[in-house]
């Protein structure tokens, strides 16, 4: 069961703001002068706003001493929001017993790269390693964000960070689901976080995979499924779900947003037409198919898809893979949208934030508009009726979410609306 959601996205902090932004088609993509000064091709991106002020409200001065990397701050904010949304309180007594029934699997793609490049690298190179203080390691280590969240909430289950490039957030959720299914935890916070850092974005700019031709109109720059898509817009933020066993959720009368029906994580092996940077379509289809099999559903039972859909030339291939995996003709293809059209590609956070979007749509009966694809890619013309450019009110029973990442890695999760009939048992 999904019993809590927390989100810090470029177009909104918290469920109310984020839902409003999704429904209204509000873009969180902005022009960043520092990217222009640094001669980036792509000078637009997605970054959560007002984070320092939020952190001051949420955390003590002592806690903020080691939140200088925004991957830590973003993750901590979203985790606290998720925890409270699920009906729990943040424990302020750090001497008590931990909650051994709850863990956290919180992924990130590049972890504390902002702090490493901005503070630690220059200090070390200038012979000042011994004057950096004690807080660098805990913020730049890959597991810094899960460790921080585990400490804030006193979690005593598995507390770790996964990393699988742009697959990370969705992979975390599938792993958490499996862990609960195995009976190894009652609750797991799961999702993804990515720092707002030009050091992360610069590496993608170097690859010429970012949208570099719409710096003058940032809100139109992220164009998944569009004929004029020219690359993705980098983003950042955090999206975290609380996954909980049915027994635990019912016992404490938790609010249920939906349930995880099944999921899969795999790799295309960088074989067939797959590579380090391109997905093997057979791997993608297999991942989606395995997730559906795990969920015990057929392709024609899926009402909506929240795609990976980054705004590269891979978008038509992704839709083709979904179509092949679902085994339905284009005219009966489910609704499909890309949250990245509104927030950019938040990399390791993408699966986390986009799963929050999927759960909000499932819980509140809408499919958000996928903006900037009025000029639909010609190969997607047969699917036009399935791609809403403005939000439609529609109650889905099943929403599928997938993420794909460098390394030819895939993750897919199937969410179902919660049916509280007394004998429901899955």
């Amino acid at each position, binding site marked *: 069961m999904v019993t809590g959601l927390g989100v810090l996205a470029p177009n909104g902090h918290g469920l109310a703001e984020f839902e409003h932004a999704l429904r209204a088609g509000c873009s969180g993509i902005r022009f960043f002068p520092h990217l222009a000064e640094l001669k980036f091709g792509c000078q637009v991106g997605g970054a959560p706003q007002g984070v320092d002020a939020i952190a001051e409200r949420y955390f*003590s*001065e*002592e806690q903020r*001493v080691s939140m200088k990397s925004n991957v830590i701050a973003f993750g901590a904010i979203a985790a606290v929001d998720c925890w409270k949304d699920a009906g729990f309180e943040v424990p302020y007594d*750090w001497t008590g017993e931990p909650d051994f029934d709850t863990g956290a699997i919180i992924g990130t793609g590049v972890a504390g790269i902002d702090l490493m490049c901005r503070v630690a690298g220059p200090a070390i190179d200038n012979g000042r390693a011994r004057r950096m*203080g004690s*807080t660098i390691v805990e913020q730049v280590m890959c597991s810094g964000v899960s460790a921080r969240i585990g400490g804030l909430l006193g979690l005593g289950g598995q507390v770790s960070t996964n990393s699988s490039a742009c697959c990370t957030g969705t992979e975390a959720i599938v792993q958490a689901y499996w862990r609960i299914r195995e009976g190894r935890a009652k609750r797991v916070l799961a999702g993804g976080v990515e720092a707002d850092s030009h050091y992360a974005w610069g590496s993608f700019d170097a690859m010429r995979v970012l949208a570099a031709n719409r710096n003058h109109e940032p809100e139109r720059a992220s164009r998944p499924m569009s004929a004029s898509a020219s690359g993705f817009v980098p983003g950042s933020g955090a999206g975290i779900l609380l996954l909980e066993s049915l027994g635990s959720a019912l016992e404490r009368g938790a609010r249920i947003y939906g349930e995880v029906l099944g999921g899969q994580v795999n790799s295309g092996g960088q074989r067939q037409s797959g590579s380090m940077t391109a997905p093997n379509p057979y791997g993608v289809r297999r991942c989606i198919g395995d997730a559906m099999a795990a969920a015990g559903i057929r392709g024609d039972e899926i009402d909506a898809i929240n795609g990976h859909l980054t705004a590269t030339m891979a978008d038509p291939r992704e839709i083709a893979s979904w179509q092949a995996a679902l085994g339905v003709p284009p005219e009966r293809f489910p609704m499909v949208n890309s949250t990245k059209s509104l927030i950019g590609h938040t990399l390791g956070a993408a699966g986390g934030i986009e799963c929050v979007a999927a759960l909000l749509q499932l819980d509140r009966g809408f499919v958000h508009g996928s903006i900037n694809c009025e000029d639909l890619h010609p190969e997607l013309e047969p699917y036009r009726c399935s791609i809403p450019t403005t939000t439609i009110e529609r109650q889905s029973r099943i929403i599928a979410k997938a993420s794909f990442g460098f390394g030819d890695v895939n993750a897919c999760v199937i969410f179902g609306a919660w049916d509280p009939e007394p004998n429901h048992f899955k």
Partner: protein
Amino acid sequence: MTDQATFDRVIDIIKPYVKNGDRLATAKPETRLLEDLGVNSARLVDIVLAFEDEFDIAIDDEAADRVSTLGDAIAVIQEKTR
């Protein structure tokens, strides 16, 4: 500098690293940083660095290891500023 002035400056420096903020108001020289004020042991490094910057002194590892209470901190600072 008087002992009280040094004490007050030490309190200001350690404040960001203290979990038990309410204990600062009644802190005494025998107050222990870790046990009483809830300072994370790793943060002693940051506190010593802050002492060095604030009082323009160098505190070697041996002296830093002697800092357990507020009084210890003041003694080290006074020893190094002498």
